[in-house]
């Protein structure tokens, strides 16, 4: 069906666009809350890409954990700590800029190496029946590390939210 192909292609580019637009919004906007919204849009785009690749489970998990949990925790932190006037971001300069750029370079090079060295398997051959038993086997045997890493991400989000909230309050003292 050629028609489906067009729709699928369109959706692929749409999700790519969402991911990049969200990411751009996240780093370019002046308001912290808008940046967070950009982050959420970007996550949704990534979830759409998983969906495109045929893994509905992963895309649902992406929404549940990244959008539903992490973004909300960060938003919570922002709202507890800041009022809208305080959210006008200052210019990043000096040490922070250096740190940011180096972190980005390291992450991207790691990703590049990982992508370069992976032997790619077509998605179709990996699909299981998504029963509870199958999920449990996969999550706790095959993808144990990924599973644990997700919990680390959650932890990082909670810690980050607490730091954000705390900083906001300290600023008011001054």
């Amino acid at each position: 069906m050629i028609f489906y192909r067009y729709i699928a292609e369109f959706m692929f580019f749409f999700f790519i666009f969402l991911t990049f637009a969200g990411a751009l919004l996240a780093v370019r906007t002046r308001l912290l809350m808008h940046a967070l919204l950009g982050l959420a849009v970007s996550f949704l785009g990534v979830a759409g890409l998983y969906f495109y690749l045929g893994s509905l489970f992963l895309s649902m998990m992406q929404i549940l954990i990244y959008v539903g949990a992490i973004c909300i925790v960060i938003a919570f932190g922002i709202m507890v700590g800041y009022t809208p006037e305080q959210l006008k971001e200052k210019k990043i300069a000096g040490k922070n800029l250096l740190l940011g750029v180096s972190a980005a370079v390291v992450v991207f090079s790691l990703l590049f190496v990982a992508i370069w060295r992976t032997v790619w398997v077509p998605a179709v051959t990996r699909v299981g029946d998504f029963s509870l038993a199958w999920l449990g086997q996969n999550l706790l045997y095959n993808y144990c590390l990924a599973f644990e890493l997700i919990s680390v991400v959650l932890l990082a989000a909670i810690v980050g939210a607490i730091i954000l909230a705390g900083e906001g309050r300290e600023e008011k003292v001054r």
Partner: protein
Amino acid sequence: MKSETNTQQNQSFTLNMGPQHPSTHGVLQVILEMDGEYVLDPQPVLGYIHRMHEKMGESRPCRKFLPNTGRMDYVCALPFNHGYVGLIERAAGIEVPPRAEYIRVITSELNRVASHLLWLGAFLLDLGAFTPIMYSFDDREQILDILEEITGSRLTYCYFRPGGVYQDISDKFIEGTRAFIKRMRSRFSIYEKLVATNIIFIKRAEGVGVISPDMARRYGVTGPLLRGSGISYDIRKQEPYSVYSDFDFDVPVGENGDSLDRYKVRVQEMEQSLRIIEQALDKLPEGPYLGKAPKKIKLPPGDSSFSVEAARGELAYYLVGDGSEIPYRLKIRVPSYSNLSVLPELGRGILLADLVTIMGSFDLVIPEIDR
């Protein structure tokens, strides 16, 4: 959204509750200093509907001030009438026939029940229960119908006159009142089931806004709030005015002084009011309903005071006469004014929801506070 820069309370911010807010019951503003959900310092701001009733009282003959009294507390207007005519009678030495006194007691107590019913609904609305207010308004309507029959108005009554009342009560009124007493007695069990045994209600009201007897004394808290703290003080018993000494009734008191006790005290007060009305109807003497009072009442020099138990507490009128018709000085001490002044102390360090509960349990009528 200005953040507070005070170094002492660096984590706080200001929240304006009112003058347009559902649970301030009128145009009262409370400026809240908040830390998250906790209230650090609530400061009431009064005067949004201040009308300078005292000045009006000092600039016209004393008879002409009578309609103003019902406008101060529109929910429980007859005791305000009662206090004022009682004061003039006391100052000018006017005799009141016994039938008039009995009619005054019956109508005042009916008005008290109506006021408590309104409070019951509004208090539970503050706690988020929507239904009780409909039930209590249903009952209150009956009282308003009965009172409209003889007073001619439903809310801001001006029924009492120096020396008696405006018109005699009819048989229809007596029948209606007896029917209402019967109906109301059966309704108490509904309120008991719907409200008083509800676990969420008890958890919301218990231990919230505890007024100790000492605190009540320092602030001059009176009425059901004081009785909720366990002090049996009721002007109708302590300094019986009118013919209250003729009746057998109890003064219900609470134990802990929390919002739950105030609820219980008010419900029991309604039952006692019904008892008083019943006795008054049984004993109702024959005779004139309006005694002899001069058309132009001269207020002799000197000061006099008259206190009545309004639905919210002690209402005191204080008058200084100079021998003319016009009062030289008229002070009106309203109960909610002193009752509300306890809020800044009571509301320190509690949750916002508890502050709403406390203000609801106070039974505030803002025009009365602002006068």
